[in-house]
């Protein structure tokens, strides 16, 4: 099925008599648990920007629009999506073009999440078709809106299980004039994360804090003099370390965001969300258990991508740490890709899905 507008999509869902797999650009099809559906419903036919208003920092765009097209349109106005979405093409070895609807459905956020919020924080409105074929909306195109329940957030990261999104509204940010990265070299994980936490706890408004290959990276963005000042402040904060500064090094941040460091590794890739200070402890526990691993930390240590032996279930080692682990690639000791919820939360989620998708036909089982 390849509807080109909301009405066609509504008809397609109403007439469906079997489970549907929802597809945008097809770059993240293996994220989430397996979906047992032989019919594919594509959003790729619903494209185009319906409103881009620089003076209001607002974008309204149809869900099937490729992310690169959205970014090109924003570039032309010197604007950006605040949450810096990653692409999964490298990590998952896929060839399509990520769509903005797919980004929202999976709540994909990159390094700037730590300062500017996640995809769900920039999303201010959705139009969608639910599992019964009803066309509905929530939120709108203004950045402050508490009119009724915030189903906009609920839709972000719902992996298509509550409805198929057709149009999305975002709050935008101006593109920073300058970007600088302060690199601290030769650190172990614990010291590296300590550096990131101190940078985040300083008044320097850092917009990226990552650690990979013994290198702690701290990103500063803004007007030229301001960036210059804050780089100086960070250099004096960490004066005892081996420090270099890169200007406008967008490639390094793209490679961190897209987890390119781990893409060539064998075995399983896991994505872990924990309290930043728990990150290096979790990794140290694994090392102490003689597990072979590679780790890339983002979000000040709170987001860890790990490559691990394929027969290991990371969740068996998460005891004592809050947060959650998602299997992104590989077998992971046979673990379900999405972390199972406790009974109470699972019951609420099941209840919501039953309301939005009473026949249980939308990406059934993808979130567990």
């Amino acid at each position, binding site marked *: 099925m390849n509807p080109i507008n909301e009405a066609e999509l509504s008809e397609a869902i109403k007439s469906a008599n079997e489970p549907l797999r929802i597809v945008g650009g097809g770059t993240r099809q293996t994220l989430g648990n397996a979906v047992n559906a032989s019919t594919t419903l594509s959003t790729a036919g619903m494209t185009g920007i319906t409103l881009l*208003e620089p*003076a*209001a*920092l*607002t974008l309204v765009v149809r869900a099937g629009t490729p992310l690169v097209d959205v970014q090109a349109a924003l570039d032309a106005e*010197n604007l950006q999506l605040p949450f810096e979405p990653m692409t999964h093409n490298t990590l998952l070895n896929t060839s399509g073009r990520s769509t903005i609807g797919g980004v929202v459905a999976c709540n994909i*956020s990159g390094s700037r*999440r730590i300062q500017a*919020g996640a995809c*769900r*924080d920039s999303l201010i409105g959705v139009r969608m078709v*639910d599992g019964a074929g*009803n*066309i*509905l*909306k929530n939120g*709108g195109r*203004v*950045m*402050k*809106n*508490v*009119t*009724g*329940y*915030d*189903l*906009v*957030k*609920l839709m972000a*990261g719902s992996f298509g299980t509550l409805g198929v999104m057709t149009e999305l509204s975002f709050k935008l*940010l*101006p*593109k920073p004039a300058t970007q600088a990265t302060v690199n601290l070299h030769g650190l172990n994980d614990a010291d590296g994360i300590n550096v990131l*936490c101190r940078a*985040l706890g300083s*008044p320097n408004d850092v917009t990226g804090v990552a650690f990979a290959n013994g290198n702690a990276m701290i990103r500063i963005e803004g*007007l030229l*003099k*301001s960036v*210059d*000042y*804050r780089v100086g402040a960070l250099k004096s904060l960490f004066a005892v370390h081996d420090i270099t500064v890169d200007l406008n090094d967008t490639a390094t941040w793209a490679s961190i965001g897209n987890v390119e460091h781990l893409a060539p590794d064998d075995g399983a890739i896991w994505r872990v*969300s924990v309290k*930043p*200070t*728990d990150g290096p402890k979790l990794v140290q526990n694994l090392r102490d258990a003689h597990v072979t691993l590679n780790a890339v930390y983002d*979000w000040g240590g709170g987001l860890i991508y790990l490559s691990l032996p394929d027969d290991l279930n990371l969740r068996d080692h998460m005891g004592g740490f*809050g947060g959650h682990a*998602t299997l992104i690639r590989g077998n992971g000791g046979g673990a379900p890709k*999405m*972390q199972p919820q406790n009974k*109470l*939360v699972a019951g*609420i*989620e099941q*209840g*919501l899905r039953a*309301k*939005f998708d009473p026949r249980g036909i939308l990406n059934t089982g993808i979130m567990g």
Partner: protein
Amino acid sequence: MQMPTPSATVLNKKSHIISRLLDVLPAASVISDPIQTRAYECDALTAYRCVPMLAVLPANTEQVSEVLKICFEEGVPVVPRGAGTSLAGGAMPTADCVILGVAKMNNVLETDYENRLIRVQSGRTNLSVSGAVEEDGFFYAPDPSSQLACAIAGNIGMNSGGAHCLKYGVTTNNLLGVTMVMMDGEVVEIGGGHLDASGLDLLGVICGSEGQLGVVTEATLRILHKPVAARPVLIAFDENEVAGACVADIIKAGVLPVAIEFMDRLCIETSENFAKAGYPDAEALLIVEVEGSEVEIEEQLSKIIAIAKRHNPVELRESKSEEESAKIWLGRKSAFGAIGQISDYMCLDGTIPVSELPYVLRRIGEIGREYGLRVGNVFHAGDGNMHPLILFDANKPGDLERCEEMGAEILRLCVQVGGCLTGEHGVGIEKRDLMFDQYTSTDIDAQLNVKDVFDPKWLLNAAKVFPLSATETRRAAS
């Protein structure tokens, strides 16, 4: 204000309910004396009042759970209450309800600077969250005007904003996790110290659900390091439209101030008479604030001032000291109180796309003249969240009704230009009956379905947010 008929069944077993509540709460936490329950008859929307059947003041999550379990079993409606500062009637009781006040639950449970979070009981006031961490250089960013009094529980219920949300976002963007008691007494933990909880974003839908999905007893909040300094500039214009255009140009230029506040002539004059902040004689006034180190502040302000000068301001005043900064903010912060000194007023809260500011301001003026009521405008211009203040005389028969009609017309105007009914105060009872102006019945049904899942008996704050006609069947079924 139409409210559901109180349940005779519930009222008839009042003494039985009291005795059950006394089994789980200390006597001082169960308030049944009609003189004492009167304290809970309204929130900050004082035009509407109703004394509740009972009020309870539990001290912790376990007690909240016990109370809700009893109310669930007995079929008693519950209205959660933070500090009672809602401007939308979010905490207004029904005659057959138990008010569940969280005021006793105000402890800090954990501060963690490395991970930049604080965990508090939900009755803690907004400002005292910052107060708990400010000596160490941190603060909690959302800053509603009522922050001295309002509770985090209410902030979460209404997804409260504030003057500085252009940069820092509103409550939902600063909330990491909650402990919430469901209506049946079950305690659920959502989120925590990590970012982006797994599964569906339940935290996102709980925040802003106006106490209809559960009672939040504890919250994990993001804290930030305070900026080195902040400095406002005051820019005055002889036309509202020009001020609106200046706001648009500042935003387009790629400078993102932490706040852009707008006041029109009525508000400028009234707050000047009241607070003596030294405001100029002008049609419109902007306060634009930037943050950072000295270098950063100067760099940003020079850009903003250059933009402002292109719009020929009648006055442009850059603060040179802490005292001058305080004075620039004094008039703005006194605006509501100053208007309250000269008249009764109703405060609206619609949001519009920033680009529609000049048109909407003009239309509000016209609508005011049609209704014969004065209206002042003071609001967060950077994000389009307007607060028209309609002046009326509560002692004059028919004036309140006329004011409400006029308010509804302004809110419909906000929706027509692409905005919404409420930007940060919430729907409560105040805007309940306008919901169909913004949403179709299908849109509303989707929201009601969410409540069905969390509160299948429709006992929690059930007469709010949605038109009574839309919820009637569900409430009756319970």
